[in-house]
């Protein structure tokens, strides 16, 4: 079978509304990468096991490789490109850079999105390590061994404004 014809959908990505023609099989990850040129969310397993495609959908972390683009009508997507800017990194990004929690960088955007959601939700300035580990359970990293990642999340938490 050849791909089905495009259907129209409208969604907001990083604060900008887009009206796009998208084929039925297209995932949100493919929409972000191929239609909008956003390479922050990465393609890893493409089947919801590694987490490097993680974005926020209506404020909640999701595997964008598992979301059908045509199911996101009217919803808000935030990718890592929507946090901070080149001149002024988001505090979570800043913390990752500062402690050296980035090696190849492939898992980093996905982990930062989950960390951002976690820190903003509870606003705990000193989260316990087991809780951070559990929150990041859906994100795999092959390079760092996670120690620096946990350190970065704790550092970012400590810098949360009350």
């Amino acid at each position, binding site marked *: *079978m*050849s*791909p*089905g*014809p495009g*259907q129209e959908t409208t969604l907001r990505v990083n604060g900008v509304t887009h009206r796009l023609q998208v084929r*039925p*099989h297209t*995932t949100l990850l493919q929409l972000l990468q191929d239609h909008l040129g956003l390479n922050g969310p990465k393609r890893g397993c*493409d*089947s*919801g*096991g*590694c*987490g490097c495609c*993680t974005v926020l*959908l209506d404020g*909640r*972390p*999701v*595997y964008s*490789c*598992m*979301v*059908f683009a*045509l*199911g996101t*009508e009217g919803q808000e997507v935030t990718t890592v490109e929507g946090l901070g800017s080149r001149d002024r990194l988001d505090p979570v990004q800043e913390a990752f850079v500062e402690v050296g929690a980035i090696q190849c960088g492939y898992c980093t955007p996905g982990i930062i999105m*989950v960390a951002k*959601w976690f820190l903003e939700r509870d606003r705990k300035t000193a989260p316990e390590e087991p809780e951070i*580990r*559990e*929150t990041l*359970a*859906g*994100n*795999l990293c092959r390079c760092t061994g996670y120690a620096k990642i946990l350190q970065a999340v704790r550092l970012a938490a400590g810098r949360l404004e009350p």
Partner: protein
Amino acid sequence: MPFCPQKYLIAGSPQEASRILDAEGERAAVVGGGTALRGFASRGLLNHVEVLVDLQRAGLRYVREEAGWVTLGAATRLWELEQAHSLSSPAYRVLLEAVRSLPVQVRSLATVGGSLCTAHPSFDPPAALAALEAQVEIVGPSGTRSLPVQGFFKDFLVTDLGRGELVTQVRIPKPPAGTLSAFLRMARNGADISLVNAAVRLAVGSSSGSPCQGVRVALGGVGPTVVRGLETEAALEGRSLTKASIETALGALDRDIRPWDDFRASASYRREIGKVLVRRALAALAAQHVKES
């Protein structure tokens, strides 16, 4: 291009979804959260699917409390169960712990209905719903019907759904007062599905050494479908929770389960871990009871 649906339809009601499913048969697949479906699609298992039917706007997203029941709409996302006031008592902890064992990204998308309809024996919410004796409600061309979660699972990845049918809601009967519950899982890592899981629910009277009542034990990953440990339950019913009664119950568990070998774990490992998890769950409930009485 292997996975090539031709149409993505957003159903406005369960009846509309049923009509599409009846018309398309095997050519249609339902999208709840899409998590299991996308997983199968990326493994080349859904190349025959031409129509996707999305249920997110079909009015099936709710948690309601009715006389004697808590009712969950089939399209309710799993994370919404964590926030539901109706599920906050210890009796439902088994379901919330099952949900919390999943990665946050899955909880954001996966639905109650999807979790059941995938009929994978290692999924976590179905074992909890089996221990809670949930009823599955189905709408189809010949009307509405209802059956217990246990009867809904026919075989590995096979449900009782016929052509044109879909699950609309899951009803949980309110457990007896004083019911405690627990859920435990064993997995290779936090992102993988469970190797084995155990969901236990029981009510214990207020004095120490009181007998258990309403014992319900369900396990995943120890057979082609979620297993209710009927002999295990019978071994504990009316007895107090002691080391001895727990070990007797675990002997009965051996007869209840039918694990198999697969690439994740061997049958003997699943059998052993099943017993460990049930033992730990019962011990946790015994400790919880002492604390709360």
